């Protein structure tokens, strides 16, 4: 079966984010960018399905500026077969991302679409569910285990009270949680090979989707910072402070 994976280019998770002084957003100039960690897990899961002989082709798609091709190449180096870059500058919001991905799903007809559960920049946690609604597919969100079984897929989900397992009809949408797998690193030979793998570029217009921002960010501020308090000498002093100074016990 064919697996489609959506990957997003975001700020590297190790980078300390700084809000721009004019409060229009976050400073992304000269900042290290990388594949969203949840998307790396999505790619890894697809590659494992291929290694098990369940998947026979992995197509990876990213929406964004030209630079997204770096993340597509990374996914190709990790084992994806083919890339699609939907070139869009500026702010592509979740609903539009989902509409673009729907158009790709209609063209490619994958059996399984794997996305990250959230991107670590906007922390929205929406795109996969929106894509599932638009395509009329079932969804297994926040997956920590994915087992394909004939025309069904069993997905174990990380939910507030513990774990929950669902059975979904294929084709279906899965969004990854952190414990689904531990992504591998790309080897140098595979990075070289990835440069030769096919990568198509298309525009939202090619896919018949009009980008319409419905959300306007009025301002972005730094959070009210916490400052370091005091160091206590021992446990007795700690308990005394909690009881008599902070009055929280």
């Amino acid at each position, binding site marked *: 079966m064919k697996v489609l994976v959506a990957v997003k280019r975001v700020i590297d998770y190790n980078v300390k984010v700084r809000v721009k002084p004019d409060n229009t957003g976050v400073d992304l100039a000269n900042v290290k960018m990388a594949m969203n960690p949840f998307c790396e897990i999505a790619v890894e899961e697809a590659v494992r399905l291929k290694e098990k002989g369940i998947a026979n082709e992995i197509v990876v798609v990213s929406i964004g500026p030209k630079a997204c091709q770096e993340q597509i190449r990374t996914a190709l180096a990790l084992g994806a077969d083919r890339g699609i870059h939907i070139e869009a500058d500026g702010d592509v919001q979740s609903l539009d991302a989902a509409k673009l991905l729907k158009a790709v799903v209609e063209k490619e007809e994958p059996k399984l679409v794997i996305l990250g559960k959230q991107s670590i920049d906007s922390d929205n946690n929406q795109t996969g569910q929106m894509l599932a609604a638009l395509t*009329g597919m079932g969804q297994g969100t926040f997956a920590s285990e994915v087992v394909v079984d004939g025309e069904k897929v069993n997905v174990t989900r990380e939910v507030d009270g513990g774990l929950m397992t669902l059975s979904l009809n294929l084709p279906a949408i899965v969004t990854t949680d952190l414990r689904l797998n531990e992504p591998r690193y790309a080897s140098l030979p595979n990075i070289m090979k990835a440069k030769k793998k096919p990568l198509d570029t298309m525009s939202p217009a090619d896919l018949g989707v009009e980008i319409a921002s419905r959300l306007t960010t009025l301002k972005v501020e730094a959070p009210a910072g916490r400052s370091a308090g005091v160091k206590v000498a021992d446990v007795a002093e700690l308990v005394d402070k909690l009881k008599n100074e902070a009055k929280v016990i």
Partner: protein
Amino acid sequence: MSILVIAEHDNSSLKQATLSVVAAAKAIGGDIDVLVAGENCGAVAEAAAKAEGVAKVLVADNAAYGHFLGENLGELVAEVGKGYSHILSSAGTTGKDFMPRVAALLDVAQVSDIIRVESEDTFVRPIYAGNAIATVKTSDSIKVVTVRPTGFDPVAAEGGSASVEQVDVVKDAGLSSFVGEQKAESDRPDLASAGIVISGGRGMQNGDNFKMLEQVADVLGAGIGASRAAVDAGFVPNDMQVGQTGKIVAPQLYIAVGISGAIQHLAGMSDSKVIVAINKDEEAPIFQVADYGLVADLFEAVPQLEEELKKVL
């Protein structure tokens, strides 16, 4: 304006998060109805009818909603909600699952995880793991919003007397079915609403050592949390993870034991009123946000903490 709040519950009791979502609805202003979708969930509807500020409770009681499947809830809420100006739910894992489906079915954007209401169409939400706070305005006619419960003080659970109406909309998409679940059974206070939380990290070394934290938690009546490293290492189950991708907590007192203080962990607890850190490394970043820091070996400090607390409580 009219606001539809989707109740979070387990078919027998209403989750406190719902009362915080009603508080967010009050901040927007307008008539507030609550939709209770589930199976044999009459007790939840009664509880919702008593919540402060609720005008009407709608109950969709059907096997199709028993396990809160996103496909079925998505269609139900889109159908019931299309006459409202706002649809709100908590940003727990159930709300996160079905609300984006509702938004897509209604062809509107969703504003995720708000912590403040500025006006009927403008909301404040954390981005980048809480390292930036965005004010976002939506131009859609129906506003689909998930609410971070710790951002809003819950309305009173008692005192209201809303009417209760049945809704006969049955949506069974037939796309998914429930196979099973592993619920973490615990008599401890729910992490998300506990007044005191004590969390352990990789420094705990193994799951058995979490018993030390349980003993302290018993003295304090606290909930127990963990860092991702502790969950990944298999010390404790996933539902205990606090952070950007785990639970968001804001208790009166948060005690971090053997946790270094990575930004993804801080994203889940830095709104706590008082933070205590116990760590043997005085350079650990957690001390930069801690009101009270104790540089010590946790294997000595935690048993002492239990003893000292017993003396004063």
